[in-house]
């Protein structure tokens, strides 16, 4: 679903980000940066903007500064760009962060284009809608200069990793990465098996709203639901499966094990209630 409004950052969110990124600055340090961005936004043709727009631009500046501090996927934090908190270094941090956000858009688009031709949705309407309809809209409408904090989409397909802490292109990138991992896992399983499990699941409950891997993993766990150390058994199975097509299987294994642990908790609760 396409969001109608901007995702706004609260003061608490900002303090949390400050804490996570070890950044400390006063709002007044950001004023010159917001002023310059506002001038650019109005193409130097207006000397004033609405409160709403000013807030959006301030959030854009904060987003980029934190983007710089958090670094790119697979890289260490780029805090070296921020040696102190003078106005000049904050401006540099903002510019570096904005460049990183633009780079991440390119990476997300490349990843999306890589996944799309082989994407198997197994009847999951949410996943299909996001990839076929909503992400193209996102890449067309995402405003990396003046609203990079806004991810536009609601991302109704539930991935196994908690991405609620991400915003803007970070969130979209993480979402696509999760789907990439899931597709890798599902494609490595025997062809008929996944179709059988997901086909049956979808036809029983109408539109499938659950995560594809979660459904498959639940089925696998039900099949081995005897004896002890189920988590360990599942991990061995997953590592075995994943190794066949991904030598560096740690990320995908951990991604799937999140779901396994969650399913185990639910199964135990269910069994406890039955007994």
């Amino acid at each position: 679903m396409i969001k109608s409004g901007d995702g706004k950052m609260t003061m608490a969110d900002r303090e949390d980000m400050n804490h996570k990124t070890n950044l400390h600055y006063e709002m007044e340090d950001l004023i010159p940066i917001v002023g310059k961005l506002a001038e650019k936004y109005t193409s130097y043709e207006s000397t004033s903007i609405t409160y709403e727009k000013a807030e959006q631009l301030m959030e854009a500046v904060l987003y980029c500064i934190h983007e710089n501090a958090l670094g790119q996927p697979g890289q260490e934090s780029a805090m070296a760009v921020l040696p102190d908190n003078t106005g000049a270094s904050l401006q540099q941090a903002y510019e570096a962060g904005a460049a990183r956000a633009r780079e991440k858009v390119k990476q997300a688009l490349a990843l999306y284009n890589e996944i799309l031709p082989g994407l198997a949705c197994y009847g999951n309407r949410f996943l299909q809608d996001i990839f076929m309809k909503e992400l193209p809209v996102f890449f067309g409408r995402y405003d990396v200069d003046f609203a990079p904090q806004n991810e536009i989409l609601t991302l109704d397909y539930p991935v196994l990793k908690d991405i609620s802490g991400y915003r803007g292109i970070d969130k979209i990138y993480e979402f696509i990465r999760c789907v990439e991992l899931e597709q890798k896992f599902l494609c490595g399983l025997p062809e008929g098996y996944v179709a059988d499990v997901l086909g049956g699941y979808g036809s029983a409950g109408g539109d499938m709203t659950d995560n594809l891997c979660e459904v498959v993993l639940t089925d696998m766990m039900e099949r081995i639901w005897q004896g002890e150390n189920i988590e360990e058994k599942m991990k061995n199975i997953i590592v075995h499966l994943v190794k066949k097509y991904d030598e560096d299987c740690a990320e995908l294994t951990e991604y799937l094990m999140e779901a396994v642990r969650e399913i185990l908790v639910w199964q135990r609760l269910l069994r406890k209630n039955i007994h």
Partner: protein
Amino acid sequence: MDKNWMVLLQEQNQLSSLMETNQGTERFGLALTEEDARLILKERRHALQEQKRVEFGEGIVPKIIYEFCDSDFIDQNNYVDMVIRLQEIFYLYKNEMQDEITDDELLHFMKEQFEQVCFGDLDYLEGTCLAIFGQAIRAGYGGYKGSDGCGEYGRLDEVKRWDYELYLDALGNLW
């Protein structure tokens, strides 16, 4: 969100840039004292708060002054009051026109109507000329983009104005 940063954003270099306008307006018999400038800036803050807008850089007041300083209807006696009212009207119509129009386009439109249609009547400028123009812009009118805001009102005016040539002819016939 804490709005203090918005106040900080709009309090940069305002007083000095306002005082500098005296260099350009003195030849029209207009000058601001520092007290006048402070009053204008105080009223500017109110107007911006009222319209929920935030201003950056030098702000609009110097531009208003340079646009209107050669007006036939502004003299030293009403100069400060006029500037204060003009900035209120300006911010109001930036909002009413949903920021579709640039500062220069709006100022040119205001000045032209102020001189040629309103004859210095700011209430008429605000309540009639700008109201009609704002309504047209909200409805999608974009003709002002090519004209920089000049010569627009004739296309939208609902009132039949004086035909000055006809008037002068008639006057000539009387004598």
